[in-house]
């Protein structure tokens, strides 16, 4: 008799609360960002000058691109710890290429750097698919392997800005309507990835895999292929980030991007992507990257000891996870409004 006992109008408000929970995540980060910028600006009005906004955007760019790739992987309930090493390999690779062939058109350089990353991603994806070892372990291994290759390739050489063509370095500082060109790359990557994950069958299948891996197999989703694709995408984006790193800093050795992978995972988690997959968005992950970068820039302005910066990042991660749990509990409560089949 459950059907008859059910109220005629569904408790629509509850469901709206549940759906809003998803949007609230990204709005929450945006709000935190606005509060942080606001508080810092009150202390020091110059924090909001055109130059410092440009610096903030530029500073967020590389982290944001890596976060988009990482989010794609985490959504499938995996993780890619090798992105920092891939970035280093790609940065040194493009640097060496430009030293060898200085007149190479920039688009070709970008394609080569991205391809280096994609090849690393193929290695990750293939190992995970073939060895059936958790991604955490495989990418922890390739983190060292890729970095090791980078070291033995670079030996102790360093490529300096003077060795690189001026046109390439100009890309690192150029702006378009006040926005750094490098940031435009990140925005383009973000929009393409967000659109793909939202509007394409294979994108939705990545969410499905992260949400319930066993059910994904039963639903006939090619789980292995999708996860492989996520790692190739993450690798390719890390490769692209390596090219942008080379353009921005100009000084390259084998240590580029060392240890950045944990910042990336932190940005993704702070950005509301569930670490166990299935929910969250690349937009949130990119916002998370901007927020972490802004904290780094704001704390010195606020007169807080930079030593506290890491603690602040840690507190933010804990707060993000706490918010996640609170939201999940609230959503579960609001969705449970159905009669029991007693």
């Amino acid at each position, binding site marked *: *008799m*459950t*059907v*008859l006992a*059910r109220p005629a109008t*569904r408790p*629509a408000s509850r*469901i709206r609360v*549940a*759906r809003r929970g998803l949007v609230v995540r990204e709005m929450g980060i945006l709000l935190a960002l606005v509060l942080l910028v606001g508080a810092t600006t009150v202390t020091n009005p110059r924090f909001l000058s055109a130059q410092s906004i440009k610096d903030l955007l530029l500073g967020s760019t590389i982290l944001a691109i890596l976060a988009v790739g990482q989010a794609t992987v985490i959504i499938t309930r995996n993780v890619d710890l090798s992105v920092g090493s891939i970035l280093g390999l790609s940065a040194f690779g493009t640097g060496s290429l430009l030293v060898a062939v200085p007149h190479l058109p920039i688009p070709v350089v970008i394609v080569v750097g991205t391809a280096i990353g994609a090849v690393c991603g193929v290695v990750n994806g293939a190992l995970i698919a073939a060895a059936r070892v958790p991604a955490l372990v495989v990418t922890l291994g390739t983190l060292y392997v890729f970095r090791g290759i980078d070291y033995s390739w670079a030996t102790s050489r360093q490529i300096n800005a003077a060795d690189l063509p001026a046109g390439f370095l100009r890309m690192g500082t150029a702006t378009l309507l006040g926005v750094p060109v490098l940031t435009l790359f990140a925005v383009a990557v973000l929009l393409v990835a967000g659109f793909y994950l939202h*509007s*394409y*069958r294979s994108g*939705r*299948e990545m*969410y*499905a895999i*992260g*949400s*319930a891996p*066993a*059910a*994904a*197999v*039963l*639903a*006939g*989703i*090619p789980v292995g292929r999708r996860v492989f694709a996520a790692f190739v995408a993450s690798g390719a984006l890390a490769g692209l980030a390596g090219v942008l790193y080379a353009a921005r800093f100009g000084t390259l050795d084998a240590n580029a991007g060392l240890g950045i992978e944990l910042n990336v995972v932190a940005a993704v988690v702070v950005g509301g992507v*569930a670490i166990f997959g*299935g*929910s969250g968005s690349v937009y949130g992950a990119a916002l998370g990257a901007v927020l972490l970068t802004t904290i780094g820039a704001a704390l010195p302005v606020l007169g807080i000891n930079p030593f506290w910066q890491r603690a602040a990042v840690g507190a933010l991660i804990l707060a993000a996870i706490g918010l996640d749990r609170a939201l999940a509990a609230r*959503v*579960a409560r*609001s*969705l*449970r409004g*159905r009669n*029991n*089949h*007693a």
Partner: protein
Amino acid sequence: MVRPLLALSGVSKSFGAVAALRDVRLELFAGEAHALVGENGAGKSTLVKILAGVHAPDDGVLTLHGRPLLLSGPADARAAGIAVIYQEPTLFPDLSVAENIFMGRQPLRSLRRIDNAKMRDQAVELFVRLGVQIDPDRPARGLSIADQQLVEIAKALSLDAQVLVMDEPTAALSGVEVERLFAVVRSLVDAGTAVLFISHRFDEVFALCQRITVMRDGRWVSTDRVDEVTVDEIVRRMVGREVSALFPKQSTKVREPRLQVRHLTRHGVFTDISFTVHGGEIVALAGLVGAGRSEVVRAVFGIDRYDSGEVRVDGRRLRGGDPAAAIDAGLALVPEDRRQQGLVMELSVQRNVTLPRRWALARAGLLFAGSEHRAAQSWIQRLHVKTGRLTDPVSTLSGGNQQKVVLAKWLATRPGVLIVDEPTRGIDVGTKAEVHRLLSQLAAEGVAVLMVSSELPEVLGMADRVLVMHEGRLVADLPREHADEESVMLAATGAVPAAGTGEVVLP
């Protein structure tokens, strides 16, 4: 003779040494609903997974329209027009209901983008057809089991399949929802779909299906038209074996009540469970898989919480949700899944045995190998555990000996009430008899034993009383002399409430 739409012949499937299916045949005809019945472990779910393309048969052939059909994965089965509704819902909790229905087949618009509006409309259409109201935009997380099942049914409907396989789709549905579902299935059958319907509810089977196949122990037993057989005949074929003399229950004097469970309820799982187990008594808790037996004993032991009711051990009320308090009160639980829940596979035999008593054995907070060894030794000998050294990891033992280690571990706590969940699953006949002898001996010493078992011969051979659960409720309390295969099976399937052979438990 009409050619069958889908046919299986000579299909066999083994998992390791266990033969799940042996030489099974099945023919499904267009425009006909076909029932598949059998006890727990008869191989029905394995058969479903073969039809779904999840498992490949070791032997035998599938034919569709008379042509051989090779399924190398669930996607193949779907492409061949076979839709499966599994016993356990297989939804994506983070995705919307509409996405769950159309995953991988979402309607598209330009540039191969997903057409969300159209997908939503089609989901609404399906729900109208099923006569239910579920918001297609809400996430699947938090849906009740019945609603999850309805989403699964909508998913299968949306496939426009020529073969629809339903593995106990009605277990969680209310009467009205079942009627709606049946109306939809009938209209599909009229339109030429072949339906395979698995259910333990005979009234449904006889109301919906034209043909019925019985399976037992992984083998095909019979296929008949439903108007040519009776429920009693079907139950006899499902059970169809002799109760062996392997189960030496000594008759003992029933003593004082030791475990009292009153009106125990966990919403949506089990309702109003009341029973008493006395010292010296072995009480079996029987029922089909999913009837809620394991859930009840887990709640009694405090692993899961319960919403209302109470548990008393030796007259003292036990705090809910606190296994440590349960152990202190003299309760012991030998869980169903020994590898996952009963043992720490990498630890040594002696460490596993002494695990629940590690505080009692410790001196000044330190646990010495010697005292561990001595404590384990006596129990290992008493239970005849065949093990090389007590320091070997427990994973090196055979299944039967592992089960004895689990028993030793809990017997070492000297429990007043012993709860065993499927004590002999997957162990050989000889060890089985030893386990039974041990349980019987414990009862004779005054321990109250509550045994959950899916093996009818074990239940009937061992138990002084048989409690039968059906869909989260206790439906029968049969004393030993009234309990036989048919009365237990009928009560477990909810066909006849206890068949008048014993008292029907009322709150």
